[in-house]
């Protein structure tokens, strides 16, 4: 495990320092110096930012909008459920760890404050917000070693948790496999949310052919299954429907959504997703 964590760390660091991601992972609006645009005044806007020239021209209150250049709060939330302990090429949990490492080190490099959260139906491990590489290294190690089995994610609980401890606007990366009742709308209004769906090809198209005793890793219930091609196809179709609904939900709440498979190049995929 130790070696694996080190390997992931080194890989993540190499990726981050060899590639110029840019100092900004997001385009949050804030109180920086870079002017972004003029918009109509809305209730709650800072009156300091009223652009009087533009107001006089249009006879409507206009305010200047600036890019956020402050230090960003980056929440990396690992949604821990039993189903993360699955994978044909690599275990999904390892992939999630790699993502956490990439995000962690890149936020540290950009001097952003990292809030690691390991959440199932409660917060599993408490971390101080950090810039520190060594703490990120510990987070990576924990992400590799944490016991996923017999846990299930409570998404609304997670939203509540984030909303109570995080009053400032932040960038939230939610890493999980998004099964079940997923609702991230509660955190999507104030924050910039990225949903990173870690999946395995086999779990999306389980062409196993035969009789299996399958165990639900969330509850430990087991059942016998005969999986034939038709069953696999049907399952694939049902899962696609489920995922389409999920995507719709994310689209509706302006959550950036991306799927990362266990056989993908994680760094490239992550870049793709984040840059849109």
């Amino acid at each position, binding site marked *: 495990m130790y070696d694996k964590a080190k390997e992931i760390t080194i890989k993540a660091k190499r990726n981050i320092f060899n590639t110029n991601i840019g100092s900004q992972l997001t385009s949050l609006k804030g109180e920086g110096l870079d002017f972004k645009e003029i918009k109509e005044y809305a209730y709650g806007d800072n009156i300091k930012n009223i652009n009087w020239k533009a107001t006089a021209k249009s006879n409507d209150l206009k305010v200047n909008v600036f890019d956020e250049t402050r230090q960003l709060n980056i929440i990396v939330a690992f949604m821990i459920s039993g189903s993360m302990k699955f994978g044909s090429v690599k275990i999904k949990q390892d992939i999630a760890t790699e993502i956490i490492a990439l995000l962690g080190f890149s936020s540290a490099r950009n001097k952003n404050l990292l809030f690691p959260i390991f959440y199932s139906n409660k917060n599993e491990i408490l971390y101080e917000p950090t810039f520190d590489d060594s703490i990120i290294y510990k987070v990576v190690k924990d992400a590799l070693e944490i016991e996923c089995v017999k846990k299930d994610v409570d998404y609304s609980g997670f939203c509540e948790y984030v909303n109570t401890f995080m009053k400032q606007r932040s960038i939230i990366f939610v890493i999980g496999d998004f*099964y079940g009742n997923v609702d991230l709308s509660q955190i999507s209004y104030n924050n910039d949310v990225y949903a990173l769906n870690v999946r395995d090809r086999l*779990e999306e198209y*389980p062409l196993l052919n035969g009789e*299996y005793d399958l165990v*639900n890793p969330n509850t430990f219930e087991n059942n016998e299954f*005969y999986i*034939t091609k038709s069953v696999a196809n049907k399952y694939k179709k049902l899962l696609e429907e*489920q995922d389409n609904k999920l995507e719709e939900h994310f689209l509706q709440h302006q959550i950036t959504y991306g799927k990362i498979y266990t056989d993908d190049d994680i760094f490239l995929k992550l870049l793709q997703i984040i840059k849109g």
Partner: protein
Amino acid sequence: MIFENYTFEYPYAFLILILFYLCLKFCKAKGISFYFPNLALLQQASRKSMLLINSLKFLTILFLIIALASPIKEDNVVVRNDKGYEISLILDASGSMQEANKFNIVKDIVTDFVNKRENDRLGLSIFADFAYVAIPLTYDKNSIKRLLSKIDVGIAGRQRTALNEALFLSSNLFKTSKSKNKIAILLTDGMDNTNTIPLKVAIKTAKKYGIKVYTIGVGSVGDFNPAVLKEISSQTNAKFFHANTIQGLKDIYSTINKLEKSEIKADKYVKKTYFYQYFLAFALLFFLAYFYIVNKE
């Protein structure tokens, strides 16, 4: 009911069904077991095929067990003929039997007697001008009763009484008999007046086959010859009765019924028709279908 005679030869075989269920629960085959995410959806996806496969499995087992329980159709038929009684009923159908409705009364009583002798082979002979065997020894009570209801006085003529001939003929019915208990019940209201066969020959034939000949004289003593009837019965180790009332006649038959009590009941042979092969065939079909579906891809 159609299924009245259908039953299972080994109904305890159905206990295997309980065993099957217990096994299904507790002694599962150790197959490949691993975690799979989103099992609820997979359950939903495989519900139909699981239902099909499981029902095929169940049907296979069920039909195998039914075949093992051996469904049969039972028909009660007595075939063993070495232990039961064989009774030849010899009835006088001469013209004189028509008097006072005697013949019909005799027919009723004899029918009743036939009903009581469930497990015996019965034969029926009629005599008047000549004697003839109406029905040879048979287990088929129904045809005896049917025939009894149809015969009437005059069927063998009216004038004379071929008593000796009747005894002789019906004795010959036992020629091939293997039974140890051979009985003839001779009922008459007259004397032999045909002279076709001498009395001695008739008795000799009866004795030869070891037949006990119960004789019944109906009416007053003048009508029949008690000496002859007594002679017949005593020579064959049987009894002579005499009746001139309906009740008396009934009593005589019930006495004979009691005297020659049929003890054998266990020797009833049950004719069984087996149906297990159909269930076996269906079980095989289900099994093949199961294999086809499981190994389809």
